[in-house]
């Protein structure tokens, strides 16, 4: 009796320990899932954080005795700034306290003062100064030690552009054939090309008279296009070919322009209106001549007086007449405002290259540094989910092209093509896998001979062991070309196989009993296999004949040419077949186990009461096993949504929004797999990829939760049985 008692105590302890371990395991799974979701949210949250601007330091103008600045530039991080004064002084000062690091002087001709300084966007560090006697000087301020002097890459002699009239507007671009200098002032516009070796200046001639009263000049990087702004606010594009300049039809005028800035990449120009707000213009490229206004930014009634474009993003900072700072991103059309940055309007605004520092110079001899935290301005709800008109686009569209291994690129981060592609692949895969998996499970569990079942079930479950990389590889390299070459045969086989099976069944029934009874009952089902194989082979064999008779010899060409249905070799059908093949074993094993484990007394009772096998299946077995079948479908759906390798290799990764089964697709999982290694850690692209993962998780939860609730309800209903 005592050993029985001890045995009971031991088993009680084991029971408690097991219960505890299982409970801990279950809680651990839930905890892990919550942690994953939290981590995703943590990575994604900064995307939606608003910009923040903090004042850093303020001090008096460095080397104030040289006068106020005509040009101001800000460095990144701890670097300081650079200012150029009208008397030709170049002051490099420290960012922390305004101490003068270097004080240099430009070689100006006698009695000439600097009217305007512009930076060359094609050659960082190169500046051009327009003088009051109508000439221009090109110089570079080196980053080096204190002993380095200003260099003149084209020589210290100024280039005479205008005859005596002060150069009010200036543009410079360093290209392969020389440095292009464009100057305007006193009603005249002149341009010259300065070649380097041998050094000579060639004036450019105008095919038609240039606009008068030009107040602003912008040279598009590349030197083939100029933009002239006149006092009326009209923009005049000018095309250059060699040494000739040809004005093109301009943009509408009528409103005065207060400031102008070229966005990185050289394809867009932003002009700020005196009546408030700004417009982004698409600069003409190639053969296109007309200027197009693509976006407007509504910054209120106060005009934007100073514009500073960012260097690595399509955005700009601006100060309006009320002293407010605006941070604008062109892609997402997102405007962020900081009220009352300054009491008085600053004279100059400079943005550092990494857009992290803002430098302001005021008329009363003060300078202020502000820190800008604006990490992800190009992401907004609209840029993620709505149609956006990007640069070079005729109309707004959904596009996924977030990185391009190059500078000056506008990232296109709309999640719509990815989500659509994922759903499309999952839909086709489930369309194939659910009927096959559930149907196969029903037959195997309910109708199949136990002897045959002993072989068939493990074989199907062995399919699950195939690595999906191999499936994707085979689909891309073997299935896709095969399908393209035999599309008609495949479609015929896919549409007509039920007829073949029914026909074979009818023929079997028509056989005399002497023949049909020869075969053991269980093996009757196996006969379908050679019938189907013969049918498929027949379809494939007959297809070329049909193709040449009706479809002009090439079915895929007929589809795209005559029916207008585009055909790609790597398309959703190939992906669906491969993905379906990968999902079928999971659905099959769960459903089959559930169907097989329906209590036999129920099925036997039904059969005993006179129900036919089919009625037993539909009326008794399926309802009892339905929770598990639903759960099998959920698992299949989750797997189809998240499968990476098959889609990455077989789909062509084309971010298209097309319902056409014969076009490619791009799924979230494949995008993440391809792009996370190249995305900068903590950058916008990186976080948007995490956001797409979160969206995928959301979809899976959305799809699984109602199914799970339904499953629970059905389980409760049939538990009593």
């Amino acid at each position, binding site marked *: 009796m005592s050993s029985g008692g001890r045995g009971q105590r031991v088993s009680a302890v084991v029971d408690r320990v097991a219960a505890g371990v299982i409970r801990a395991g279950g809680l651990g799974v839930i905890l892990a899932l919550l942690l994953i979701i939290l981590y995703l949210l943590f990575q994604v949250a900064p995307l939606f954080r608003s910009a923040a601007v903090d004042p850093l330091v303020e001090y008096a103008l460095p080397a104030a005795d040289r006068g106020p600045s005509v040009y101001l530039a800000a460095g*990144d*991080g701890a670097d300081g700034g650079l200012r150029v004064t009208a008397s030709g002084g170049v002051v490099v000062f420290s960012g922390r306290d305004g101490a003068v690091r270097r004080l240099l002087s430009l070689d100006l001709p006698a009695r000439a003062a600097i009217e305007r300084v512009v930076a060359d966007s094609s050659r960082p560090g190169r500046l051009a100064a327009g003088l009051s006697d109508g000439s221009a000087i090109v110089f570079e301020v080196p980053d080096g030690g204190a002993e380095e002097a200003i260099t003149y890459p084209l020589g210290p002699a100024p280039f005479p552009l205008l005859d005596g009239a002060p150069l009010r507007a200036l543009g410079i671009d360093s290209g392969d054939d020389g440095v292009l200098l464009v100057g305007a002032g006193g009603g005249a516009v002149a341009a010259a090309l300065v070649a380097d070796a041998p050094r000579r200046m060639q004036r450019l001639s105008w095919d038609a008279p240039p606009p008068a009263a030009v107040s602003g000049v912008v040279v598009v990087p590349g030197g083939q296009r100029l933009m002239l702004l006149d006092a009326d606010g009209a923009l005049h594009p000018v095309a250059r070919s060699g040494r000739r300049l040809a004005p093109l039809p301009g943009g509408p005028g009528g409103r005065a322009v207060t400031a102008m800035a070229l966005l990185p*990449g050289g394809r867009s120009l932003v002009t700020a209106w005196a009546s408030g707000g700004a417009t982004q213009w698409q600069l003409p*490229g*190639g*053969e296109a001549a007309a200027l197009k206004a693509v976006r407007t930014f509504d910054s209120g009634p106060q005009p934007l007086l100073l514009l500073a474009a960012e*260097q*690595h993003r399509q955005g700009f900072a601006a100060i309006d007449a009320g002293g407010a700072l605006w941070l604008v991103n062109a892609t997402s059309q997102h405007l962020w405002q900081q009220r009352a940055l300054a009491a008085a309007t600053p004279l100059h605004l400079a943005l550092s*290259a*990494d857009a992290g520092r803002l430098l302001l110079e005021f008329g009363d001899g003060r300078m202020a540094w502000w820190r800008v935290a604006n990490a992800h301005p190009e992401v907004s709800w609209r840029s993620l989910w709505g149609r956006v008109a990007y640069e*070079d686009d005729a109309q707004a569209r959904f*596009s996924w*092209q*977030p*990185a*391009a*291994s*190059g*500078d*000056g*690129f506008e990232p*296109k981060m709309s999640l719509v*093509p990815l989500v659509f592609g994922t759903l499309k692949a999952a839909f086709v895969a489930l369309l194939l896998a659910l009927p096959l998996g559930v149907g196969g499970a029903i037959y195997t569990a309910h109708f199949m001979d136990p002897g045959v079942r002993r072989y068939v079930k493990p074989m199907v479950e062995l399919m699950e062991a195939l690595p999906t*990389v191999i499936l*994707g*590889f085979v689909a*891309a*390299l073997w299935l*896709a*070309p095969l399908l*393209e070459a035999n599309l008609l045969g495949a479609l015929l086989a896919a549409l007509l196989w039920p007829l073949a099976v029914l026909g074979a069944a009818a023929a079997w029934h028509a056989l005399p009993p002497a023949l049909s009874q020869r075969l053991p009952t269980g093996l009757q089902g196996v006969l379908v296999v050679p019938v189907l194989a013969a049918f498929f082979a027949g379809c494939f064999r007959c297809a070329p004949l049909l193709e040449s008779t009706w479809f002009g010899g*090439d079915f895929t*060409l007929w589809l*795209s*040419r005559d029916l207008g249905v*585009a*055909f*790609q*070799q*790597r398309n959703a059908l190939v992906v669906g077949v491969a993905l379906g093949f990968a999902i079928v074993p999971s659905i099959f094993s769960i459903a089959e186990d559930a169907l097989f484990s329906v209590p036999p007394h129920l099925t036997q009772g039904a059969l005993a009461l006179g129900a036919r096998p089919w009625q037993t299946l539909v009326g008794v077995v399926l309802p009892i096993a339905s929770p598990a079948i639903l759960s099998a479908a959920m698992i299949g759906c989750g797997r189809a949504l998240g499968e990476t*390798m098959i889609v*990455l*290799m077989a789909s*062509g*990764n*084309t*971010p*298209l929004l097309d319902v056409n089964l014969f*076009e*490619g697709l*791009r799924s979230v999982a494949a995008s993440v*797999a*391809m*792009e*996370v*290694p*190249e*995305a*900068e*850690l903590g950058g916008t692209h990186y976080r948007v990829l995490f956001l797409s993962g979160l969206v995928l998780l959301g979809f899976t939860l959305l799809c699984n939760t109602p199914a799970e609730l339904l499953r629970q309800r059905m389980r409760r209903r049939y538990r009593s049985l």
Partner: protein
Amino acid sequence: MPRGPAHACHRRRLWPARLRALALRSSCLLAAMPVMLPGWPGSGAAWADAAIEPVAAGAARYTPVSGVAGNLSSVGSDTMANLMALWSERFQRIYPGVNLQMQAAGSSTAPPALTQGTADIGPMSRPMTASERLAFERHHGYPPLELVVAVDAIALYVNEYNPLEGISLAQVDAMFSRSRRCGAPAALHYWSELGLSGIWQRRPIALYGRSSASGTYGYFRQRVLCGGDFRSSLNELPGSSSVAQAVAASLNGVGYAGMGYAMAGVRALPVRQAASGEYVAATVGNVQAGRYPLTRYLHIYLNRRPGKALAPVEAEFLRFVLSSSGQRLVVKEGYIPLAADMARRQLRELGP
């Protein structure tokens, strides 16, 4: 990290070159045995190396040093994957204590890896962009060390049954891009628009290319599309060899990949820069003469703190790559070696 598909899709193109080399060597051995007379035309070894010797002439020989051992990790270009594998294999033969780990998912994976310190060397088939350089500088405080190690050309591959004679770069832009920034008047969708007829009448063009992680993609975008965007219908494949594979399997396909990825079933289209003139074929001779318009340098980026020397493993690996033995492997792989003075300049930049 998509190491799986990149390596799964990698066809080792070494086998044609290696078979050829093997055949050459065995035939040379057989020929050399009875014919040891100097001056006999075709006496084996001299003939086999004659093709390579002028290339390596002037490049410094590599002299092994002692004390080189450890791990060397490389993350970067898929175009240079086979080349890096050849170099690392030879390097490991010289220094058995070195263990080189390679990941080749695309050039754009190199800058983040170098910045974060997860890689020692970053091979890239395009130069680093300003923002990548900025990210590196912001993290480390100094710019990365950039070395040029070989010359490569991008070829435009079409199916072997495609009879097109040649193509101009503006036409390539019109085929591949959405924005046509290079100035082509209209988009090209069908092979018949390029002048083909018969079965090519209104046959749509199927585009194959690389993903945005690739330096080949970046170079093609800058050079051929003039900075424009690719069409959404471009099939993005993980590796250059899979681009060639896909074009071989698709009659109406066209794709771009490095010159060395040619295989049976594709042919490289001769290209011309302007709308008229001679088409230039993608051959080593044309690339070396500067006639082929789509040539580029292959780079390797390193993290070297100014004032400090590189780790011996890294320094010796780069010295090996820039030596005559390393450049000979470049030729073996189907790329073009550096000119001798360029190699010397790179060695000088590497430091003492």
